[in-house]
């Protein structure tokens, strides 16, 4: 059964292995290792590769057999369908993990100097090291299960992509910050580096203006939250702020150390800094962050979670095939 799986899969495996070899050669010789744009695109490649694996290796694996009727050929050979499914999951699944792992290895190695200079390792957390292996295992088994349930290749591919993206977004924005309890840091508000305005991009629509301290300088850490709170942990509200400083924000331009913007009038800057000093007597800056040393524990943690989910999905595939 292993030899048969390889017989069917080898053409695709050879193409992907060739592409990886080409990329490795290019990375070793042709791509300049100080090119930020290349670093960005390689990161994007690592990010999307698991999704592509799920769509093109996972979803068609069983769906195409149903679509073309060949499952009737495959399941009437002298091999039980449970074994048939298990071997296919194992062989193509391991190939998926190897492909994502090798791609990540090449990109992680190539980007090393830029990553180290950047001092922001968590910005590329899911494009480096070992987590892409977990994403690939998850995407692949997800694709196989979608194909086994839907039995049509194209819809299974789209469902795989949609679920994979949804899971990754949820994981990245909700689960990952909660995997390990963050380290808390309380800082006095610094009038020189605290601005006034609205936070975020989407949240601008819903939030009201407040004080915005600059993040502290903690290289290679991941700051998961940043807030202005009082001794009881309550966040600074717009009401409290405007009561303390009725004239804040008037006279145009945002103030304080958020460099790069057009310079605000000196009067406005002074007014904002006075306000921050005043608020700073009862409020402080509360920072929650993952220290640099948590990078590898988080990588292993996340890899284990995705591998675990992949195993559950693989079991679901076996269960589905056995009773179809």
């Amino acid at each position: 059964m292993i030899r048969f799986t390889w017989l069917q899969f080898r053409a695709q495996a050879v193409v992907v292995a060739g592409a990886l070899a080409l990329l490795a050669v290019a990375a070793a010789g042709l791509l300049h290792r100080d090119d930020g744009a290349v670093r960005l695109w390689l990161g994007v490649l690592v990010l999307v590769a698991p999704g592509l694996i799920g769509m093109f290796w996972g979803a068609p694996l069983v769906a195409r057999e149903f679509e073309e009727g060949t499952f009737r050929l495959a399941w009437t050979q002298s091999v039980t369908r449970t074994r048939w499914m298990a071997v296919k999951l194992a062989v193509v699944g391991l190939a998926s993990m190897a492909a994502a792992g090798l791609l990540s290895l090449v990109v992680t190695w190539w980007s090393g100097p830029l990553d180290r200079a950047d001092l922001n390792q968590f910005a590329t957390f899911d494009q480096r090291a070992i987590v892409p292996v977990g994403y690939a295992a998850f995407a692949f088994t997800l694709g196989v299960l979608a194909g086994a349930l839907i039995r049509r290749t194209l819809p299974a591919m789209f469902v795989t992509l949609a679920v994979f993206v949804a899971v990754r977004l949820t994981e990245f924005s909700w689960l990952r910050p909660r995997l390990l309890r963050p380290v808390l840091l309380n800082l006095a508000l610094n009038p020189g580096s605290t601005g006034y305005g609205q936070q975020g991009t989407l949240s601008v629509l819903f939030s009201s203006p407040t004080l915005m301290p600059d993040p502290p300088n903690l290289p290679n850490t991941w700051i998961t939250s940043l807030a202005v709170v009082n001794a009881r942990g309550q966040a600074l509200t717009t009401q409290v702020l405007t009561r303390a400083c009725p004239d804040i924000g008037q006279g145009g331009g945002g103030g304080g150390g958020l460099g790069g913007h057009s310079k605000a009038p000196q009067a406005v800057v002074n007014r904002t800094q006075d306000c921050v000093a005043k608020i700073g007597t009862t409020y402080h800056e509360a920072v929650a962050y993952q220290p640099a040393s948590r990078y590898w524990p988080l990588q292993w943690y996340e890899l284990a979670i995705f591998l675990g989910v992949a195993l559950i999905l693989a079991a679901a595939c076996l269960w589905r095939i056995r009773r179809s």
Partner: protein
Amino acid sequence: MNSTNTAATLLAASGLGKRYRRRWALSGCTLEIPAGRVVGLVGPNGAGKTTLLHLAAGLIAPTTGTVEVLGGRPGDGPVQLSRVGFVAQDTPVYPGLSVGGHLRMAGYLNPGWDGAEARRRIEQLGIDLRQRAGRLSGGQRAQLALTLAVAKRPDLLILDEPVASLDPLARREFLRSVAGTVAGRGTNVVLSSHLVADLELVCDYLVVLVASRVRLAGGIAELLASHHERSGQPVRLDDLVVAAMSQTGDVR
């Protein structure tokens, strides 16, 4: 593997039923087919022929009742699987895999595989081993599917409407090669079709299935002879089958 423990009954079904969601594809089917015959299964579309054969090959599991093939439960483990060769309707093959690749696949997956016999058959048909199966004509594809099923040396060969989509010439050739394969081998065969003429070429035993019920079953020679005896005049098998299919009253 070899038919040393051949049961007298090739296939026994009792109250056999299969439901897909709300629709019963087969229900309350009870029949017994003796071993050592080349059995033709005939009936109108929707009679449940394909469902019955899929149940016999172990491709699907029954919703109600039981079915036994060669004394075992269909699809129950590699030994039972190795004893049954199956050619599905429309004779599916892997379009991207070469003809030789298919033979290698069957060699990997079947312990009783007769590679020399398989290559001999393919060569005899003038099919290039390097050709992709997706490029074969309908007749060639059916022959490849038959070769795969035959060269695993099964005790029972099941063919589900293998000629339904073939032109008359390919149809005749295919049935000839089935007949040639069966001769002197002792393989049991069950072949379904909705055309009696197809079955007459190959079979010596007939089962007429209408709406999951057996309307007529027996050796073809015996059926014809007994009818001759009763009515006093010879009858064509075709007419006998049509008469069996159109009789009313005994269904549910």
